Every structure is written in structure tokens, then in C-alpha cells.
């Protein structure tokens, strides 16, 4: 049976883009290959990372923070979501950091890191600072189109992919982040 057309995952990278393997030596070609690889990984991630879990894993009590210790997940949904992130990271030989962002309902224009994979996506996340003004590339993803952001110093590359739930509503954004230098920054 062919896959139903409405169940295909979008193709953002050139067809045949590999997730693993050597990258070009020349810098610009290398950067373009890394971007293509992240876009392809994002496509695969949509099949692995559960948008339903992203929508529901944060418990309502977290939004009435009495203290920082009141941040609260639904453990099963959170574990399912994180399991997806950790496995996505392992599908590529890039040192990819993943994270899922949600919109802060109480702060228009602000995005909040909902959950990270093995380490924080470092372009936009600082230690213990998870709510940030939404960058344009992330905003674009919340509008349904993938976004790409390169840090001003040229070090970080992030791809933001819309993460829909079962109703095809964009409920979160998946970030895949790598260092162009190929380094693995310390995990915070």
C-alpha cells in the first residue's frame, strides 16, 4: 500500500541527502551539506518525535509556578518525547543537540524550552534561561515552515521544524543545532 499522501513527511532537503558520511572539505560546501543534513534529520525527526506528547507533557501546574520546584511534566509523555529526541540525535554523525520549544501562553512572542535531548541546543539556550524572545527562524517554524538560523559569530547552525500534533496543529517547534566547527560543547 502506498503511504497516504496526507501522511507523507515534508521534504526539506535535496532528495538523497545522507544523515551520515563524510562532509565536503571546502568550507561553504561543508556548511551547505551540514544544513541539508539537519533538514533531512528534521524530516526524519517528525516521524520519531511525538507532537501529541509535546503538546501535553507539561502539566498545567507548571504554569502556576509557586517555586521553581513546581515545574512538572507528565512523566510518561515527557519520557516518550525525550526518548525521541535522544534517538534522533543518534541518527546523524553530526554532534546534534535537540530541543523542543513551546510558546509561552502568558508571554506573547516568547518561546520556552520545553525539553532538551542530550544537551541544550546552544545557539539560543543559556544556563537556567529557557524563556527567550522568539527568533524569526523559530517564529517561521511556528507558522508551519522550517526556519534556519546561523549565529552572528558563525559558530552555530540551527534548524527549526514545525512539530504538529494529530490534528496537524503546530503545537511546538523542534530545534536541531550543531556547531559548524564540529565541536561538542560542554553539556550544561
Amino acid at each position: 500500500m502506498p503511504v497516504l499522501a496526507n501522511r507523507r513527511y515534508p521534504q526539506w532537503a535535496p532528495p538523497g541527502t545522507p544523515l551520515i558520511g563524510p562532509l565536503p572539505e571546502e568550507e561553504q560546501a561543508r556548511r551547505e551539506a551540514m544544513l541539508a543534513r539537519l533538514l533531512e534529520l528534521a524530516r526524519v525527526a517528525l516521524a520519531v518525535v511525538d507532537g501529541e506528547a509535546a503538546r501535553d507533557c507539561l502539566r498545567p501546574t507548571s504554569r502556576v509556578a509557586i517555586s521553581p520546584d513546581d515545574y512538572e511534566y507528565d512523566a510518561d509523555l515527557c519520557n516518550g518525547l525525550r526518548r525521541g529526541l535522544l534517538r534522533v540525535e543518534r541518527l546523524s554523525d553530526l554532534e546534534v543537540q535537540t530541543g523542543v520549544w513551546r510558546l509561552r501562553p502568558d508571554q506573547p512572542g516568547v518561546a520556552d524550552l520545553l525539553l532538551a535531548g542530550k544537551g541544550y541546543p546552544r545557539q539560543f539556550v543559556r544556563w537556567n534561561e529557557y524563556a527567550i524572545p522568539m527568533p524569526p527562524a523559530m517564529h517561521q517554524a511556528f507558522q508551519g515552515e522550517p526556519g534556519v538560523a546561523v549565529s552572528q559569530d558563525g559558530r552555530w547552525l540551527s534548524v527549526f521544524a514545525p512539530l504538529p500534533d494529530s490534528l496537524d496543529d503546530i503545537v511546538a517547534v523542534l530545534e536541531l543545532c550543531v556547531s559548524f566547527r564540529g565541536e561538542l560543547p560542554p553539556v550544561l
Partner: protein
Amino acid sequence: MPLRILSDRVRTSPETGEVIPRDRPTSEAARALEARFAEQPAVRVARGGVASFQVIVSRERPGDGAEAVPRVSGFRGAGGALLEARVCYQWPCRIGEQEWTYEVLVPEEVYRSALAEARGGPLGPRRHHGFWVDVPVPRDAEPGSYQGQVEVAGADPATVRLEVLPIELPLTPRITVDLNSYADHIAAHHPGLSQGELVACETSYYREAHDHRAVLHYLPYGHAGEVADGYAPPLAGRGRHLRVADWAEYDQRFGPLFDGSAMAGSPGGERPIPHWYLPVNLDWPADYAYFGTRGYDHEFAQVLAEFRCHIQEKRWTQTNFEVFLNHKKRYRYFPYDGDERKHQADREIFRHFRSLVDRAAAIAGAAGAQARILFRTDISWSFAHDARDDQIGPLFDLWVIGLGNFTWSRAGVEVILARNQLAWWYGGGSGPDAPTMDSDRVALLCWRRGGDGFMPHWLCMAGDEALDRAEPLSLLYPGRRFGYERALGSIRLRRYRIATETTDMLEMLGERGRRLVDELTGATDDDWWTPTPAWALWPPETMDNDMYGLQPLADPLSRCDPQTPAVIRERAVEALLAG
């Protein structure tokens, strides 16, 4: 007066050379102690302890402290026995905007050999320089009177007398002073070292803590569960095939701490490090991508069982190896608060991991039965509930309890102690801006309440910049600016050591010790505890920080002259000598 001998109970001002006003005793008994010391400097010290005093050198013109270093002779006893003295330079630090005092202690040979610009310090050339002198007393030292001389150019020498008491301190203090920190602060404070140099530097931190009868507790993993380089042995395989691949580097790096050889000659006792965080956490050794599966549980238990067997094989059986889950939901990695749990749902994780700890013990069997593996919890919100809960309470071997919760949950503490679990608290430590003997107050408070230890601050290591500004949290500092890639101690760390000597002597007195403390503080047994507030038994989800802030903490010592612990110590010595 160019040379003065002061007791170990006060700090002075590097600007005036005078005792800081808050350190001047106010009670008659404490004033008498100081007056007696001023008349004839003398220190009473138990065998296995360390006698300390201070030398203040005031020169006519401002200058470099290296020119003021006193020569302190050995201390000679009646039979010709000799006790060696160790001199440290007191480093000036700023408190607030106005005040200067001393906190960090630099071995005088390190200070003298440092570059001149490093020696200058934040105040530059000064007239007044402080020195801290320690005289470790071996366990086999002959009791009696010992005498030593302090000399500095241009001043009459001063004589200091030590009275070595016919009392021997226990090798392991009754109260554990726990210095918490996180990997990899040491590498961050000593950048650029080779791996070998870094390990030697790291060992110096453990040793510095141990020399003061404290323990450096260095959490080897971050919030995501990633383990600091070298703090776990490499693994190979997965699932039922997961094994420790090679113990060699782990053993070489940490074995000397666990077999005690790293503590050879330590005035804190020649014994292994008493407590150690294992690298075990939600993401090591088991892979969190498989959490909730049979494979995850097997990986966790199997590797922990290997630790058990290895510990026993190596005879590292005096160290308490701790399984501690420090993860917090707020850091966006895990859905559980292993640390400071507040929500009832988080309790389940502890049942599960206790079962895995027990499963590891079963796998190891007799080959690992002598290993001391403790399941530790750090707790506040839910303490009053969990300590007395028949299901949750028995899960833990070591409870590290918020000071407030400890203070207002006497029944909880007592039930822990009745189960032979360890009860520590965290918090309550003060900075160099507090009276010098405030550290003693905390240790005495812990002992009087029957606690086993305390963690005065959550982070005991500061960076280089903190040397000049008296970081309130820190008790250990990097010696890097002096060309010394080792740990430096501090006056508060010295006080904690002295305080554990006091609590050990009180422990020897048992009930008489408790009565003595009550008598000298004017307290009754109940005065050491705060009655349990009604909200402490509410569902923890409903509690907030304001409740904590508004709750007074009982502490009879805080009502007394800050030098009262010195009076208690003196009276304890007299009671022990009287038999």
C-alpha cells in the same frame, strides 16, 4: 607592638591589625578565656587534633607580607618530643564596601615564593600582616606541656605553650562537615593543566578538605546526566552485555582516596575518604533513551553490581559510595525531581531506583556485600511526610535535609536515626562577615540535635577572583595566582575542623555533654527544635517559599555570645580530664 599572638577564635583587620569588633567576646566566661590567652598564649589540644593560633606582625612601614613571615619553632615537650608547626599567610579580603578581613590561608612557603605582584594582594603594601599557625598533634604524642617560639625580625620573640591532653580524638569525626561541589569546577579554576597535573590538583582539594576533618563531595555529573571526564570507568556493550570495560584509570585516579593512601600523614586522620558520589544517575550507566525498559534496569543494576564487587575486591570498604539522583525537572531534561522533590508523583522514582540498588546487591552477592553503597536523598518540601512514611522512609540510607525542615521536624529526624539512617542537613553556613566562631555554632547545633553531619553551603569552591572578596559560599580556593596549582584552605575551614574536635569531645561525654551545652546556653532539650508548623504536613504541592521564610528556626546558641562554643569546648575538656 610589632608581634602579637592571638587565639584562633578571632579575625583581625588587615588595615588596623586590630580584632574585628564582632569577634570581641561579650560574655564573662569568653572574656576570661581571651584574657588568659593574652596573658600567656596557650592552646589545649587532644591527640589527633591540631593546635592553632595566630601571629599578627605590624611593621613600621607598609611592605610586602613576605618580609613579615615569622619563624615558628617546633614545639618541644618534656621528653624532647617535637611537634612541627605550619604557618600560613592570611590573605586579605573585602567584606561589603567598607570592611576588610582575612579568610583564605596561603602556606607561607607558597606565598613567599610567589611573584611580587601576586603577593601584593588587593590592599597592596600594608603595615599589618596576619599569619595562621597550625601544630598537628599525632595520636601517639605524649600528653603534657610543649613550648615553641615565634620570632620575627625587630621584635622580641614570643612563647606559645601547647597542652597536649590525655584525650585521643576518634579517627572519624562524629559530625561530618560536608563540602559540596560539582565537577568540573576544579578544571575550570585551574585551566591548562595536563591530565596528570589536573589529577594532582584535584587530589589536593580532597586532601585539603580531609586535613580539616571535612569531606569534599564532588558531584561528578551534570543535570543532563553526563559524567565528568574520568569520573566513571568506560563501559562496553549494551543491554545484558553492558560491562565496565576497564577499571585501570579509575583505580589509578581515585584508588588512593578510597584506600587512604592519599591521606597519609593527614592531620585529619589517616583514613580513606568517608563519602563519595558515584557517577550513577538517570543517564549513567543505563541509557535514558531506554528508560522504562528491562534493558535499562538491567544495565543499571549490572554495572552497580560491578562497582560493588570491585570495591570489595580492592578493599575500599570504609568509604560510603553514594547513589544520588540530583536531577531536576526545571532544567528540562527529566520528568522527575531526584533532588528536592515536591510532587507526590516523583516519589515513585525512588522506589524504583531503590529496587535497582537492591537488585545490584543481589547480583553481586557475597562478592560485593562488604561494599558500602548508600542511597541518598536531598530533601526539604516533603521531608516531614517522607521521613515517617512506612514506604518511602526506609528507602534511603542518607538524608540530607534542608536546615529548616530538619529544625522543625524533630519527629522525622528521630525516626531516621532510629532506622540507623544518616541525618545531615544542608544550609546554615555563614560567610567571613559573620563572627569567626559562627562555624562552631553550626557544628555544635548539629551535634546537639543528634545529627550526623551538615553541608554548610551548596558550593564550596570559588574561583580566583573570590580570594579578594570573601566568597560567602566557598571554603576552598585555587592557589593558581601564587603559581600553586593546588587547593587553599580558609579560616572557616579551620574553624570547622576545630568545631568537630569539640563535638567529638562532647560526644565522649555523652549525656553529660548535652547537659553541659544546655547549661552554657541556658537551653532546655526542646529549645533546640522548632515546633512542627501545621503546613509542614500539608501536601507539599501546596507549600511555597514564603512559608519557609516566615518560619523561625530554634537555635539557643545564636542567642549567646558568638564565642560561647569556645567556652563549651573548654568546659568539655575540663569534664573529660575530671573523668
